């Protein structure tokens, strides 16, 4: 018993399960924090919370606050006794300051730190991604609260603040007229953010001699401000000096080492006096600063704050006020607690809060009736202690839930991914026949019956256990149950299929590998291994650059080796002495090893391959624009001479094997040089990110002319390289497209144009979209027209006896070689209709011959086509030109994609598009023929090139390099779906470009001129199944390895800065690959 499952079906299921696996893993890995929307109000109108106290009518607060935020100010820069900030030091000694040691949360990078300093919340990793659509801070924060309280805010610092808080500040650049502003004092809050220290740190480290003068300069600024504020005796004022993050001993920051997370906070006020030395140096959290500042300014505490008010700063405040502040802080945190936990009221800390509020209100009554007394004082202290305890325990609960991993769903996802990997690699290793499908054996079906209740039992056990009860895989909602069912069906399916594969008999164990092909495989495995190191993840682009470079160098070596062998063989033939026989046998050994695509070619071409040795030496490229083949050299030379007379330019290049070798060598070198140029276009990664690169230089405003020149040159190159084979109409369309791209960028102000930029930039973008669409539809239409014609042709052809479908004699085979890919459609149409009318015999027009031996006559264009076709007298065979036509439309899709890339990318990356396109053309023309890769290895090669070009674009494994503006090209308003789609297309433009090229190559390689339409179709199906199989493997391998790593290293220092962004990128790339594979599988049906 048993049944057969087709491979296509298995692969489609695999793709879906890879997607489900990675999605489940990410859902378990990234916990979503629940934000409270809106802004806190001064009076608590909403009575949703349980207990309320009456609002204290009058709260004292500081009139003016100056926040001096010094970037990368390490704690020991200020709090050390040998600090260069002498003025602050003396003020400390005079008891005028309150200083704290502040602990910042990693990642210690400026933007998240500013967010923490203003909102009081710990930004989770996923927040960064979720807030992609808007740069402005939407959460409740102290700056917005200040603005709502009607305070005038002055600001000096970099753009980070301005983008976070648009329209919040009355002045953006105070530094120049700081003295003036200090005299006028018409502001309430002044924020000064100094970046100089951080720059010095990055440049020379914390021990640099440059640090001291910088700190002294800061000291002078503080002295100036203090003196100005001291003069005004009528108003109360406060200066806060703090750092956003520290600096490691190497001068960098971002991690979680002690020197990076400890920063100072110094409160300095003319109203402070005689603060004892002992109260200095208390350790607080960075998120404690925003509620403290809100209290000091008399504004509401931000809603999502997790910090607690530092009561020691409340000098000169009454007990009622201190308790009120603590109450409002606790109340705010209780609200957040309620939002995060469903059963909040059964929690111990909530009980304590209720008790504290009760005592507080009792105490207020006592205060009112009895006035101050030691007992009351004691009581107030105990209430404050309770509040602090409540805040502490609730904050701990909330923040631990932010870093709690859903281990059950993570492990399930890991198992699922590993099963997919194991199954696919088993299928690969066993080399099962692709056309038959997989026999699901009886044993595995019976095993499935046993395993279903087993897996079900395990699931119920885990879900009812206390530890994993909160896992989302244990949810009871409809969607969740559906997901659970899908995942468990998937697990069982994978096991059953892999068992069936194991039980299958070995089909074939061919050892047709050689070191050259294996380098692709080994490189892929090495890349997966490199993901286990965090610095290799950060510098992943280096891995890909290195791998592609190595592969091309090996290709160069291979070309030379083949050349040498050929030469040696020739000399062996000439001398044929006894001394050479040994070498000769070695030689032939070498050559038989040297043919990794032989499996496919041998099997498919149906032509005799006793000349294979020769062919490997100079196997022609599968590109349709070139071919050369002949059984022996004499004939080849004759043929060359003939051809050269007719068409000198095209064929001289490929005719001579020596010449073709040199072409290939030059081609490889050109590809390598382009790769090198591409890599210096955009510097990415982490270690060398700040090195200047060409892209940076071009985007400088003063280099606008150069940028425009670059874009124009790139566009012209693009047009020249892709327009060569197109009709005039298509050329015009592409020209309009490129012009539209340029106009669009000129309108956005990036490029120069002889017109002043108009305000509406999106018109041009829509023009380009329209051009792409028209071009695409036009090509589809023509291909449809042709396919209907072909079907009518083949219906005629099928009536003839099948014997005529074999080649009668190779040398009588006439091959049509059309130079123009698109024009050929028309030309073929003409010819075939002509032939049908005149001869009434099915004549197969071979569109392109690759491997068939025999004298081949090539025809370059229509003019020469027609006379040639009158020659045949004996019934000839007509091969439907389907492959040619499909390759043409594939080229059109590729061209559309190139145009879309130029539109979406930033202007300097138009150069990237041009260079990659030239690279691709070089690979297609000169390299592929010498690589002789089988379909699977060709897939690997294109993936490598795609990964490399992903980084050439300027992407990296950090979220910050995503070019968000690409999502808004041509869009007036924010449309989440469209923006997301455009964004992911633009980000993965390079890999998609190479995947499309892959389809083109595989199509050209698979199409066999001597086979019928049906056979060709079956062959395409088979080859594209191989492609999808390889894609599944290359996705499952890194995902399986990486998810295990992330699970094991979930408490690692770099988990938020390195591992999580990489996981997101891998997930997104998986989506791209899965969509691509599904489309390929469905279309090649």
């Amino acid at each position: 018993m048993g049944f057969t499952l087709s491979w296509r079906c298995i692969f489609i299921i695999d793709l879906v399960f890879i997607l489900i696996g990675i999605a489940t893993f990410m859902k378990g890995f990234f916990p979503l924090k629940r934000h409270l929307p809106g802004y806190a109000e001064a009076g608590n109108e909403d009575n949703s919370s349980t207990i309320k106290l009456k609002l204290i009518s009058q709260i004292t607060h500081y009139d003016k606050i100056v926040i001096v935020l010094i970037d990368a100010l390490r704690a020991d820069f200020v709090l050390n006794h040998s600090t260069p900030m002498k003025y602050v030091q003396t003020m400390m000694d005079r008891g005028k300051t309150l200083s704290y040691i502040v602990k910042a949360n990693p990642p210690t990078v400026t933007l998240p730190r500013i967010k923490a300093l203003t909102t009081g919340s710990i930004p989770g990793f996923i927040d960064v991604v979720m807030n992609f659509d808007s740069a402005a801070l939407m959460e409740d924060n102290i700056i917005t609260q200040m603005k709502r309280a009607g305070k005038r805010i002055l600001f000096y610092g970099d753009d980070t603040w301005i983008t976070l808080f648009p329209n919040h500040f009355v002045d953006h650049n105070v530094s120049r007229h700081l003295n003036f502003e200090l005299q006028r004092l018409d502001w309430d809050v002044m924020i000064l953010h100094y970046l100089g220290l951080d720059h010095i740190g990055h440049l020379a480290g914390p021990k640099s001699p440059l640090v001291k003068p910088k700190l002294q300069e800061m000291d002078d600024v503080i002295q100036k401000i203090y003196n100005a504020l001291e003069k005004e005796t009528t108003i109360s004022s406060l200066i806060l000096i703090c750092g956003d993050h520290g600096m490691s001993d190497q001068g960098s920051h971002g991690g979680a080492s002690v020197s990076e997370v400890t920063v100072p906070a110094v409160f300095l006020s003319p109203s402070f006096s005689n603060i004892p030395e002992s109260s200095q140096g208390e350790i607080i959290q960075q998120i404690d600063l925003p509620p403290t500042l809100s209290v000091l300014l008399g504004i509401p505490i931000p809603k999502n704050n997790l910090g607690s008010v530092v009561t020691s700063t409340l000098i000169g405040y009454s007990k009622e006020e201190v308790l009120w502040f603590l109450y409002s802080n606790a109340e705010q945190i209780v609200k957040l607690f309620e939002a995060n936990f469903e059963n909040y009221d059964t929690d111990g800390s909530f009980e304590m809060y209720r008790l504290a509020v009760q005592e507080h209100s009792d105490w207020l009554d006592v205060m009112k009736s009895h006035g101050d007394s030691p007992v009351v004082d004691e009581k107030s202290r105990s209430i404050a202690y309770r509040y602090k305890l409540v805040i502490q325990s609730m904050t701990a609960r909330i923040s631990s839930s932010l870093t709690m991993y859903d281990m059950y769903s993570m492990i399930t996802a890991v198992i699922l991914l590993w099963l997919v990997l194991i199954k696919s690699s088993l299928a690969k290793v066993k080399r099962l026949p692709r056309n038959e499908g997989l026999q699901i054996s009886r044993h595995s079906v019976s095993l499935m019956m046993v395993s279903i209740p087993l897996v079900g039992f395990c699931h119920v056990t885990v879900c009812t256990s206390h530890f994993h009860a909160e896992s989302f895989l244990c949810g009871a909602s409809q969607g969740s149950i559906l997901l659970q069912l899908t995942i468990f069906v998937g697990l069982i399916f994978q096991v059953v299929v892999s068992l069936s594969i194991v039980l299958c008999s070995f089909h074939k164990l061919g050892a047709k590998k050689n070191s050259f092909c294996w380098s692709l495989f080994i490189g892929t495995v090495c890349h997966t291994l490199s993901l286990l190191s965090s610095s290799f993840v950060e510098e992943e682009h280096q891995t890909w650059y290195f791998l592609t470079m190595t592969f091309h160098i090996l290709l160069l070596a291979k070309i030379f080796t083949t050349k040498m062998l050929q030469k040696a063989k020739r000399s062996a033939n000439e001398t044929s002495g006894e001394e050479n026989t040994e070498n000769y046998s070695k030689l032939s050994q070498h050559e038989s090893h040297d043919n990794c695509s032989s499996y496919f070619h041998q099997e498919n071409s149906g032509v005799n391959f006793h000349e294979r040795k020769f062919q490997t030496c100079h196997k022609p490229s599968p590109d349709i624009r070139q071919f050369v083949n002949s059984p022996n050299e004499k004939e080849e030379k004759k043929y060359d001479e003939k051809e050269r007379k007719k068409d000198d330019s095209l064929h001289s290049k490929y005719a001579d094997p020596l010449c073709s070798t040199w072409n290939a060598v030059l081609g490889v070198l050109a590809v390598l040089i382009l790769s090198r140029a591409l890599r210096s276009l955009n510097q990415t990664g982490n270690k060398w990110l700040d090195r200047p690169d060409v892209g940076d230089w071009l985007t400088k405003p003063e280099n606008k002319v150069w940028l425009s020149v670059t874009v124009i040159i790139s566009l012209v190159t693009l047009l020249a390289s892709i327009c060569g084979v197109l009709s005039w109409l298509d050329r015009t369309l592409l020209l309009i497209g490129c012009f539209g791209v340029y106009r669009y960028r000129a309108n956005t102000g990036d490029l120069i144009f002889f017109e002043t930029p108009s305000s509406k930039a999106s018109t041009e973008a829509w023009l380009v979209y329209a051009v792409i669409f028209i071009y695409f539809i036009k090509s589809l239409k023509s291909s449809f027209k042709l396919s209907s014609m072909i079907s009518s042709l083949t219906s005629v052809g099928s009536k003839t006896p099948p014997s005529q479908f074999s080649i009668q004699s190779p040398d009588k085979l006439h091959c049509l070689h059309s130079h123009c890919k698109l024009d050929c459609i028309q030309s073929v149409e003409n010819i075939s209709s002509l032939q049908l009318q005149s001869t009434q015999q099915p004549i197969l027009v071979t569109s392109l011959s690759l491997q068939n031996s025999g004298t081949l006559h090539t025809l370059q264009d229509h003019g020469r086509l027609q006379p040639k076709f009158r020659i045949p007298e004996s019934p000839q065979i007509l091969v439907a030109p389907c492959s040619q036509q499909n390759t043409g439309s594939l080229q059109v899709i590729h061209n559309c994609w190139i145009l879309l890339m130029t539109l979406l990318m930033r202007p300097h990356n138009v150069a990237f598009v041009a260079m990659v396109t030239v690279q691709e053309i070089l690979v297609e023309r000169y390299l592929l023929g010498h690589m002789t890769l089988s379909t699977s290895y060709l897939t690997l090669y294109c993936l490598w090139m795609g990964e490399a070009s992903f980084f050439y674009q300027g992407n990296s494994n950090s979220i910050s390099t995503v070019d968000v503006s690409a999502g808004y090209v041509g869009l007036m308003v924010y449309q989440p779906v469209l923006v997301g789609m455009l964004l992911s297309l633009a980000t993965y433009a390079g890999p998609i470009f190479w995947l499309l090229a892959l389809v083109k190559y595989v199509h050209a390689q698979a199409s066999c001129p001597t086979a019928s339409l049906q056979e060709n179709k079956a062959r395409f199906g088979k080859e594209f199944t191989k492609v999808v199989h390889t894609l599944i493997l290359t996705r499952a391998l890194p995902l399986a390895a990486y998810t295990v790593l992330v699970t094991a290293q979930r408490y690692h220092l770099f988990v938020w800065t390195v591992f999580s962004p990489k996981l997101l990128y891998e997930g997104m790339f998986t989506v791209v690959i899965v969509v691509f594979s599904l489309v390929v599988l469905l279309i090649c049906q």
Partner: protein
Amino acid sequence: MTADKTPHSARKVLKRTLTWSLFCSLASLILLLIPFNSGTILDLVSNCLVATKMWISVILIQIFFICKSVTHSMPGKQQSKVGCLLKYVAVFLAIVTFFCVITILFGAPLTESRAETFHFAVLLSVAGTFPGLMTCGVNLDEWSRLYVLSSPEYGVEVVAYWTSLCSIFGAWLGAFPIPLDWDRPWQVWPISCVLGTLGGYIIGLILSSVHLFIKYYKMARQKHL
């Protein structure tokens, strides 16, 4: 060259080459390890350029002596000495240029540390192609016989084959630790690659000794039989 020699003298040649390559590998190992991290002028990490220069000459001398010990004359002796030398120098310069280009293509900085890149390229060509140049001369057929068909014939060719392949592979491997975030002084370009080349060279010498020893052993057994 070896064809007309008797088996006895062939064994002698083999033995001599074996001894020389073992001696050279030991000497190089000592020379590499002793100044390492010492901060002296021969320390690769602190004085990269000087140490690379020293190593270039060391390898040149070693290879020269290994080859000299057996053949007693340069290959291609028909031509005049000066013309021959000029030809060799031209080929060697071309090789250096080629390695420079390859190194830059692999990602060496184009504008900065040019001297380092050049020194590395010279070292790589000395370790990677000088042995071949000494044994095969400027004859392309000889080269292809040695490297493409990988059939090193007599003693010196074995040394040339292994040292050059291992040096180039070592240089390739040497680039791996550069992106790691350990912030060690030897991760700076091109120190790790130079170290890789030298390590590859020494391993190549050891491998060729092993290869020669096996050959010697076989020859000895044949004689006894």
